[in-house]
């Protein structure tokens, strides 16, 4: 009976690898998101029943899609028969108002466009007309195959609220006429940005979580990387997709070294670089090279390039800060974001000394663009400390302490404050 093990594993693998594809195909075929999920679920249930007996099919994905499609076809036939009976009884008109609802015949259509379905699904889930948290939830449910309960737990939301969020999103897609497609060329850059933005947010949700009870949240980072891989596979000519995947891998390579055993933040320069994940760094750098070779830079590629500068420096002193400062300048031109400008100031301080960095930080402070953002006084404090202007540094640390959003960060600033205050 040792056959049960490998078959169960095959089903689990198929679920991870094929769920999104099955749902995506079924949405195209039925025009109905709920029916698609339901039929996909039934197909996997059928696999659990049949595969241990008949063996794992040669192409599990095709088997699952066909099974799910047959379910949908059965449902549709029942529905058509039922509707015909009702029509005969009451002589009412058939309801053809639902957009995208295909004729029954469509369900038997050939697979010619199947490869595009996951991409369609990604663009639809990440449509900017949907609230951001709905985009994230819908992506996790339909593409990654997480259950509503799992998504709710990851976002610390009651399951009923998450279920409601998913229902509302699907209803809006139907009612507002959000098309199930890869957008046409003139919309593609903007919409691709929206997809990349959702995957990046997903990754960060998991990345900012630390150990212990946050483990469910950490899984979000792996899901983001998995989905980014799919996106790269589906859009090989989109350098920003490559850039995003590279960025996620480079960040993820440092995951285990970012907090110590007490849950306290370990800064980049204090992290144990021997514990960084070499394989992820190498893959990230390779992907970034592929992206840059396409000659169409963008913000994810630049961020990945910055992350690569850090990831490939053998020790903190080896970091090419001049290069990083240049990359932040490029990024600043692209985004006009004051947060990017703050990061540039840090890089300039490392490359040209704290006084040069402080000049940029003070200019930002005067502009008022970042008022209330704790990293502004925190950065000032750090530069003032390095310039031995202790009293000013202490004042700035106090400011940062008052604005810091989490306990971990408050502890960090309190430690620093004690250092400059106590001496």
């Amino acid at each position: 009976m040792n056959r049960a093990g490998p078959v169960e594993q095959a089903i689990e693998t198929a679920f991870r690898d094929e769920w999104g594809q099955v749902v995506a195909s079924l949405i195209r075929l039925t025009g109905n998101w709920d029916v698609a999920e339901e039929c996909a679920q039934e197909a996997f249930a059928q696999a659990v029943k049949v595969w241990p007996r008949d063996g794992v099919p040669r192409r599990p994905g095709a088997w699952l899609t066909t099974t799910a499609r047959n379910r949908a076809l059965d449902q549709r036939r029942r529905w058509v028969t039922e509707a015909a009976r009702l029509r005969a009884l009451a002589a009412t008109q058939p309801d053809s108002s639902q957009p995208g609802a295909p004729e029954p015949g469509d369900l038997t259509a050939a697979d010619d466009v199947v490869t595009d379905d996951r991409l369609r699904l990604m663009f639809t889930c990440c449509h900017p007309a949907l609230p951001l948290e709905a985009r994230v939830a819908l992506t996790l449910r339909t593409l990654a195959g997480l259950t509503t309960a799992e998504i709710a737990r990851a976002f610390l939301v009651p399951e009923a609220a998450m279920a409601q969020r998913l229902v509302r999103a699907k209803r809006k897609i139907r009612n507002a006429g959000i098309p199930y497609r890869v957008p046409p060329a003139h919309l593609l850059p903007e919409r691709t940005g929206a997809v990349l933005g959702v995957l990046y947010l997903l990754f960060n949700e998991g990345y900012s979580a630390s150990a212990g009870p946050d483990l469910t949240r950490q899984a979000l980072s792996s899901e983001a990387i998995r989905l980014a891989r799919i996106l790269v596979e589906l859009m090989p000519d989109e350098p920003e997709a490559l850039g995003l995947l590279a960025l996620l891998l480079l960040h993820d390579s440092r995951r285990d070294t970012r907090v110590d055993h007490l849950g306290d933040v370990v800064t980049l320069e204090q992290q144990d670089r021997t514990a960084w994940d070499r394989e992820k760094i190498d893959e990230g750098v390779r992907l970034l090279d592929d992206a840059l070779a396409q000659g169409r830079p963008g913000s994810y590629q630049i961020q990945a390039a910055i992350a690569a500068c850090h990831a490939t420096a053998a020790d903190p002193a080896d970091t090419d800060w001049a290069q990083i400062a240049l990359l932040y300048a490029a990024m600043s031109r692209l985004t006009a974001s004051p947060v990017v400008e703050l990061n540039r100031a840090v890089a300039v301080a490392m490359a040209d000394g704290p006084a040069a960095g402080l000049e940029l930080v003070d200019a930002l402070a005067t502009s008022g663009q970042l008022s209330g953002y704790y990293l502004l006084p925190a950065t000032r404090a750090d530069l003032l400390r390095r310039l031995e202007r202790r009293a000013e540094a202490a004042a700035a640390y106090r400011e940062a302490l008052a604005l810091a959003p989490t306990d971990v960060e408050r502890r960090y600033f309190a430690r620093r404050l004690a250092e400059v205050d106590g001496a």
Partner: protein
Amino acid sequence: MKYLLLVCGDESLLATQAPEPVEPWVQEMDGRGVRLEGDRLHPESDATTVSESGRLIVDGPFAETKEQIAGYDVIDCANLDEAIQVAAKHPMAKVGAIEVRPFWQ
């Protein structure tokens, strides 16, 4: 699909700075067969609100927002993407906001 464009703007702002003329947009969308009808509305000071099954009558608009409905258009588009593009071209999208609402049927 049919969509209602609710053309919204800050009335006090509209009084001081005239928005771009809407006619070119109307002409283009009529010509493309996208726009079915539309009109400008009198300001909120002329509005009356009826509620509670018609028993309660209040002067002024229902919603307490700065942005008021200044006009509306009914458009017919293939999907939301197309409707958004049509709305974005409306001159009031630059100074106010356009709410795009799908028709019930």
